[in-house]
């Protein structure tokens, strides 16, 4: 057997986290102020100044794996597990702190759709610009130009500035350029989470084609179904370390098992609750639109928050109100899902167990951790009240359908908006 196409050995990446500093960048004035103040402090306290408040954070540690030629490896893990850092190192955007990677072949990476697209330039111009940013030569782009345009289906708008494109067209064109890179190793991050369903199918088809043609693909995604479809092997990252590596089914199973408490949070044994207990919350689960269990919500994705409740009275009860309050990590109430707002309180619920599904089309929560409160009343009397009941994660997703994922720094909520320019 030939040598592996990718071998990763003892890979680690350390970030320095500065405390007391909200900005990502340093301002010279701060450095000068700190340096100037240091001797003064030393003079006053009579001791050398303490080291500045810095903390090491290992985004990746002791990561080792190999990928053979023609293998399609899916990398999964929660937010902050180190997936992006791993991809950034493999794409040479950032250097590792320790360890070693050997790539035996031309690698191209696609961490974002449409990197470097300029809104003022036309579709044609952007194809050349983006292609060259992704490492294609002008001759290569010219040779594949027609194919790219046909794949994107934007022939008529080639000479229109892309700022006038619909977001769907924009994403299609951007993916089309990237899909026509022909490297031996292709590194892809989440790009399939964009565009409409039909185009996603097309992209999946193209990726399958790439994989079948014997090229090696590294693929990071939150969409477990896609990973399972596309990849032979899987790698589960957790806290910057490789948790499991092997056949994709096993890895996905390990991931789902690991996230079980999040997938279905049980309240059966909880004592910290109020209310008369006529109805009690049994458990809650994060599901996708097809009601398959998910480890976490995804911004912009259609999801279902499923609540199982138990009517303990032994007979149907009337006038049942159910609500879920959502708080972000800062303890701010972000939103409330309530039968009062959606469809009205239930006139009647049966005795025994019943299920309440909260349907969330295009979930408008930013990535992050959230706590939820559960509250139910029967005939106006509090039946069950859990504060807080549990927590869930929201992962970054393509809420706006533009390929630009809103992030945790964007504020506390997502709002639909359109921006126009008037001369």
């Amino acid at each position, binding site marked *: 057997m030939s040598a592996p196409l990718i071998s990763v050995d003892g890979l680690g990446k350390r970030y320095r986290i500065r405390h007391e500093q909200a900005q*990502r960048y340093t301002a010279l004035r701060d450095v000068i102020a700190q340096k100037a103040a240091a001797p003064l402090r030393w003079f006053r306290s009579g001791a050398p100044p303490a080291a500045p408040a810095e903390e090491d954070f290992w985004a990746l540690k002791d990561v080792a794996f190999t990928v053979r030629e023609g293998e399609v490896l899916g990398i999964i893990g929660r937010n902050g597990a180190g997936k992006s850092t791993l991809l950034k190192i493999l794409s040479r955007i950032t*250097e590792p702190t320790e360890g070693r990677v050997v790539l035996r072949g031309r690698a191209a990476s696609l961490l974002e759709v449409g990197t470097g697209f300029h809104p003022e330039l036309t579709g044609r111009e952007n194809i050349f610009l983006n292609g060259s940013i992704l490492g294609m030569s002008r001759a290569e782009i010219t040779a594949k130009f027609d194919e790219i345009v046909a794949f994107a289906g934007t022939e008529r708008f080639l000479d229109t500035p892309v700022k006038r494109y619909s977001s769907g067209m924009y994403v299609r064109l951007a993916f089309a350029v990237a899909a026509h890179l022909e490297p031996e190793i292709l590194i892809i991050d989440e790009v399939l989470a964009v565009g409409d369903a039909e185009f996603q199918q097309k992209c999946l088809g193209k990726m399958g084609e790439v994989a079948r043609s014997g090229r090696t693909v590294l693929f990071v995604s939150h969409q477990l179904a896609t990973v399972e479809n596309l990849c032979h092997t899987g790698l589960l990252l957790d806290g910057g370390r490789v948790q499991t590596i092997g056949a994709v089914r096993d890895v996905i199973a390990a991931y789902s098992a690991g996230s079980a408490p999040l997938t279905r949070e049980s309240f059966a044994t909880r004592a910290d609750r109020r209310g008369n207990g006529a109805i009690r919350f049994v458990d809650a689960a994060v599901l996708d639109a097809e009601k398959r269990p998910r480890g976490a919500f995804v911004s912009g994705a259609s999801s279902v928050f499923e609540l199982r409740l138990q009517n303990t009275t032994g007979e149907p009860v009337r006038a049942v109100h159910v609500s879920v309050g959502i708080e972000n990590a800062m303890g701010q109430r972000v939103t409330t899902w309530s039968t009062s707002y959606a469809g009205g309180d239930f006139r009647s619920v049966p005795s025994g167990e019943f299920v309440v599904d909260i349907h969330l089309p295009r979930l408008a929560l930013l990535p992050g951790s959230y706590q939820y409160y559960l509250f139910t009343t029967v005939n106006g009397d509090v039946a069950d009240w859990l504060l807080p009941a549990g927590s869930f994660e929201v992962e970054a997703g393509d809420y706006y359908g533009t390929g630009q994922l809103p992030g945790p720094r964007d504020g506390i909520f997502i709002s639909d908006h359109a921006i126009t320019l008037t001369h």
Partner: protein
Amino acid sequence: MHLVIEPGLASANYWRDLWRYRELLYFLAWRDLAVRYKQTAIGVVWALLRPALTMVVFVLFRRLVGIDRGGVPDALLVLAAVLPWQFFANALSESSASLINNTNLISKVYFPRLIVPIAAVFTAFVDFLITVGLLAVVMAWQGFAPGWTLLALPLFVALTFVLSTGLGLFLAALNVEYRDFRYVVPFVIQVGLFISPIAFSSANVPERWHGLYFLNPMVGIIDGFRWSILGGRTPIDPASLGSSIAITAAAAVAGVWYFRRMERHFADVI
């Protein structure tokens, strides 16, 4: 192809990659120009208007103050200095801001980062070439024929190019780490405009100040431009030229060295 990624090893294929990505240099410079001309109403005229107006202001200034005119038309004397100065100033401000302006590229794609500031210098160079056309027009209007000294002009253009690239690389890398430098650059350019021989000539500077005066690398370059364009009718002090060449070489070496040293952290801090 065989590629090893290790701490501190990014340099192994660096110069080969730089060559491989040379087309990206062209595309980035082209993008900046294309976008600028699409977003402005009079497009290319801006490239001419700024040096032309600067020239008019400084010619008026010379007349008002009564600076000795010598044997050369004022308009040409000033324009021959405005040309390299504006090239230097544009190249420096654009290249020093270039990394910050291309944050999305730097955090999402690998390529030798040197390309970004150098492409910005090329953009400024295109503007410079346009203003050379303005110079030709003014020369024809004044009925002024250049001499054989014009052959030396590419040397001085190259000096300006290398000097602004070297300083630009240095400032671009500093700008990523310390955003204060975006306030420093306009200030440096503003001061430079007054301590460089644009409104005046080096001949107006008392000899005892020359040691200090020649520390400004643009002095030798601007005097060189004047000497070359005006057919040797203005003097050039070999000491100022030597100082310019030495400082340019030092700036280029230090700029590339510092940039390469900081480059590996760009994606982490930008």
